């Protein structure tokens, strides 16, 4: 029989004494309970007292009776775990939120509390310690994609002492930035800036550049990835990085057919090129001066800020020093990026025209120029809305942003999730934007979501910090509060690898034995069964519920706990 110690948290005296008394009466009849004491709150002094008491009584299971378990879990995280033994040997009876506060009267509350306390004791009796493990992490990172994300992450990591393998599919580095003329929010030419970065990259001894090359296989999990890189010469190199950053970028597709094929229909990036080659005072197109330029935004990428930023940047120059008349047609102009509101005002002051459309604008050829007809809906009253027609020398179109062709293949190779549009999906759009669904694999840049360069750089920095946070300790320590497959029962049905949201399970025909499972089995024992990588498992238990052979248990949350809570034990 387990020996259990009970600490009743009076929550600074807010639990009524009559209520507490009833609980103590209940506890008196439970043989497992060695002692029950009251504490007003949990501070470091309380911890010291608790420690002494536990040692003195020789108790190794603790039930805290009081508020929500979430309360204690956060306190303990902050103050450190107060008990002298394994942190998994304590449990909480929530008698405040889910009893005292949510009942009609104190009698009902006491009933609920009694039930909660007795369940907690039963759970405590069957608690088992859960060990933790440490996975050494070498300071080695693989970055896929030599665009600006990949380059800047590589530089940050290398400066912090991490060895980086940078794999780029193309012959040239820089990705989409090679098509960029300048930054929108600082006076900086992109070309020179990029060259500087690439130079720095090539000179850094900690960065190994593999280009042109691509990832051929990936095996293993965080800390023990085995990546096979294939160069265009057909050579294979296998490296074993601790973490991986995917920064493979996106591709664009321009609208084709009919008038869209006309030479006066250019894309934003073609315009960017034209401007970078233009010497003031005037831009020329095929030898003739360009006087009117019309931008069409939001017809393909409605939720992406990049087009608004580039159009604004270009129009400031065109309307300003190059003396053109610029019109921007959009559904909504996105000014949420750094300094964009100010630049927008400046553009209006310079005389850039903005039109808001709902119906797609119509294009026609008039005397070699392109006539744009658009119904302006920026005026609220419908009757005041009129159609505008603009004769333009150039119409600038935005390109559709699409996932790179290799994204699909890469997602299968890396076992990463794709979002609805086929870009890589972040693990949590609010909190964990740069983490993929797999521990140890991060996503950065346009392969997740196309963004403007300064935002991309910002995000690249975030990725680098995350990687550094992971690798700087040299090891990753984790509790074995994870799913575990019983190889004897496993039917090799592949259900769990398919349902695992974090791709933490693989069927390993000849895997090393789960080291946390059995110490007495000689190392390098081979078997065929599904295997959970404990460092990659998040402990959600989805696989447990799915396994047709019931071969999987969640070590920190076995069936038993659930049956006890359901009131079905014994």
């Amino acid at each position, binding site marked *: 029989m387990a020996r259990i110690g009970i600490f009743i948290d009076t929550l600074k005296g807010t639990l009524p004494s009559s209520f507490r008394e009833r609980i103590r009466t209940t506890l008196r009849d439970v043989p497992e309970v060695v002692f029950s004491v009251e504490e007003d709150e949990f501070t470091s002094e309380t911890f010291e007292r608790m420690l002494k008491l536990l040692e003195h009584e020789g108790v190794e299971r603790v039930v805290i009776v009081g508020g*929500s*378990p*979430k309360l204690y879990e956060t306190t303990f995280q902050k103050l450190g775990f107060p008990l002298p033994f394994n942190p998994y040997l304590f449990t909480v009876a*929530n008698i*405040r*939120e*889910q*009893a*005292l*506060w*949510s*009942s*009609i009267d104190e009698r*009902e509350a006491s*009933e*609920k509390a009694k*039930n909660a306390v007795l369940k907690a004791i039963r759970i405590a009796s069957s608690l088992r310690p859960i060990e933790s493990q440490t996975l050494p992490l070498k300071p080695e990172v693989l970055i896929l994609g030599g665009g600006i994300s990949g380059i800047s992450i590589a530089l940050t990591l290398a400066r912090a002492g991490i060895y980086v393998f940078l794999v780029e599919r193309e012959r040239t580095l820089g990705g989409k930035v090679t098509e960029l003329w300048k930054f929108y929010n600082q006076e900086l030419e992109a070309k020179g800036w990029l060259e500087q970065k690439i130079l720095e990259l090539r000179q850094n001894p900690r960065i190994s550049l593999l280009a042109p090359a691509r990832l051929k296989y990936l095996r293993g999990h965080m800390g023990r990835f085995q990546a096979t890189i294939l160069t265009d010469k057909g050579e294979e190199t296998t490296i074993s990085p601790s973490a991986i950053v995917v920064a493979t970028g996106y591709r664009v597709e321009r609208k084709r057919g009919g008038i869209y094929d006309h030479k006066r229909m250019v894309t934003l990036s073609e315009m960017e090129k034209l401007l970078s080659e233009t010497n003031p005072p005037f831009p020329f197109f095929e030898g003739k001066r360009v006087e009117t330029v019309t931008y069409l935004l939001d017809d393909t990428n409605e939720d992406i800020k990049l087009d608004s930023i580039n159009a604004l940047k270009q129009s400031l120059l065109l309307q300003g020093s190059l003396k053109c008349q610029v019109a921007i047609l959009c559904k909504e102009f996105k000014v949420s990026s750094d300094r964009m509101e100010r630049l927008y005002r400046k553009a209006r002051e310079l005389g850039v025209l903005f039109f808001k459309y709902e119906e797609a604008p119509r294009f026609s050829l008039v005397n070699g120029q392109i006539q744009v007809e658009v119904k302006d809906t920026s005026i609220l009253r419908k009757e005041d809305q009129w159609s505008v027609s603009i004769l333009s020398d150039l119409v600038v179109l935005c390109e559709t942003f699409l996932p790179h062709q290799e994204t699909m293949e890469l997602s299968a190779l890396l076992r990463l*999730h794709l979002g609805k549009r086929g870009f890589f999906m972040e*693990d*949590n759009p609010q909190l964990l934007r740069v983490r993929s*669904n797999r521990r140890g694999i991060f996503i950065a840049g346009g392969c997740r979501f196309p963004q403007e360069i300064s935002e991309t750089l910002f995000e690249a920095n975030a990725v680098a910090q995350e990687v550094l946070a992971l690798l700087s300790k040299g090891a990753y320590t984790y509790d074995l509060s994870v799913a575990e497959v019983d190889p004897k029962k496993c039917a090799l049905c592949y259900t769990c690898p398919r*349902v695992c*949201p*974090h791709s933490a399970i693989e069927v390993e025909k000849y895997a090393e034995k789960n080291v946390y499972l059995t110490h007495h089995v000689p190392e390098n024992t081979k078997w065929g069964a599904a295997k959970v990588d404990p460092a990659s498992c*998040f*402990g*959600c*238990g*989805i696989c*447990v*519920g*799915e396994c047709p052979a019931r071969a999987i248990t*969640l070590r920190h*949350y076995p069936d038993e706990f*659930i*049956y006890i*809570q*359901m*009131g*079905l034990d014994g």
Partner: protein
Amino acid sequence: MVDFDPKIIAFCCDQSGYPSADMAGSLRLNIPKNVEMVRVPCAGRVEALYLLKALEKGADGVVLFACYEENCQYLRGNLRARGRLSYIHRLMEKIGLEKERIEICYLATNSGVKLVETLQRKTEELKRLGPNPCSEGK
């Protein structure tokens, strides 16, 4: 209508159901007394078997509190739970048990009111349906 106190087993996802129950307490809302709260790390941890066992071993109804779609911390736990429930619903139909005895309810972390309303409504519904005729004890 039979006058009895229906027993409900409520599986609470640790990201939505459980904090919502705490929230309900903080708001001093009354959680019906015959409810067994079962804290699970994710709705995806709730096996189909638990749902049936609950009914077999004495519950009159079961509520599965999961996160809203696309809101699961583990990406698809709520969807897997929904799938399992639909399987159990089919089985219940064959057994001759009312499907309404088990339902899934989607919550956010702070849906205390919705949780309590659901449990109260379920209690009323179960009172109308009467005691679970398949449970062992009865």
